[in-house]
């Protein structure tokens, strides 16, 4: 429906429309778009920071797990082994035999 063709009782009336038209709405300031974009960027940066602060829960957890695995690995690497190799057993036996022979020699047996 065209505004001009509307029944008079639906619109404001010519006089009122004339009065209101004399006071048009203000226009946006020249810097409006730039300031809006700047605000958008600022909000996006703060959102990213928010994510950064939220993420360390996972980052620190992952880092902590990694460090724990490393420490356990090093400790396991440095721990003396419970098993004794055959070479060590034979070396010990040899040294016992040799010591026994030397003792016998000194005793003149």
């Amino acid at each position, binding site marked *: 429906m065209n505004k001009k063709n509307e029944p008079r009782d639906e619109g404001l*009336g010519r006089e009122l429309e004339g009065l*209101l038209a*004399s006071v048009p*709405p203000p226009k*946006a300031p020249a810097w409006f*778009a730039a300031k*809006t974009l700047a605000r*958008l960027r600022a909000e996006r940066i703060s959102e990213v920071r928010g994510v950064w602060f939220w993420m360390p829960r996972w980052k620190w957890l992952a880092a902590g797990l990694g460090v724990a695995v490393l420490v356990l690995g090093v400790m396991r690497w440095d721990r003396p082994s419970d098993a004794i190799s055959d070479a060590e057993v034979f070396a010990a036996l040899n040294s016992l035999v040799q010591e026994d022979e030397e003792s016998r020699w000194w005793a003149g047996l």
Partner: protein
Amino acid sequence: MGMGQEKTRDEDLMAQIATGDEEAFRQLIERHQDRVYGTVAKMLGGTGPDVEELAQEIFLRVWRAAPRYQVKAKFTTWLMTITRNLVFTFFESKKSRRNELSEQAPVGEEDFATAREASLNRTAADELSGKELAEAVEKACSELPHGQRMVVHLRQHEGMEFEEIAKVMGMSLTAVKALMFRARENLREKLSGYFRASN
């Protein structure tokens, strides 16, 4: 520039904005900033930091809503719906703090009566100054209830059809026309002196 062309371009810009295109967003702002800023200013009864901040917030809502934007109506209808929602929310928050702008500096009935009387006492040679008339019209509009003020603005300054206004306001066509009728009666009453003075 045809309406259909502009609508298509707005939709295209929205599609680009949905992908994070700031340049498209800048274009959209520049295209509609006067419409949004003017509406907010008219609703709040003047310009100022609140108007600028609220108008910016409206465009930021557009940015955030862009990925979910679906073409169901004219872009301007959707934009004005966001504007209406935020402006009315602003009024509600202000009201809750008993600090509503329209209540901060209203012109009382006494002031209007004085202004009206002054205008009636003028001789034919005394023409109303444009500034005085503008102030009276602004004050009369700012005293309208929010719904009436919005309807009057959308109709008078944005040139929207009643069907579009109904969509923006979330009301039936009949309800919008009733609001317009009451607004007209209120404005006629408040500005009656100026009618006579200007005739």
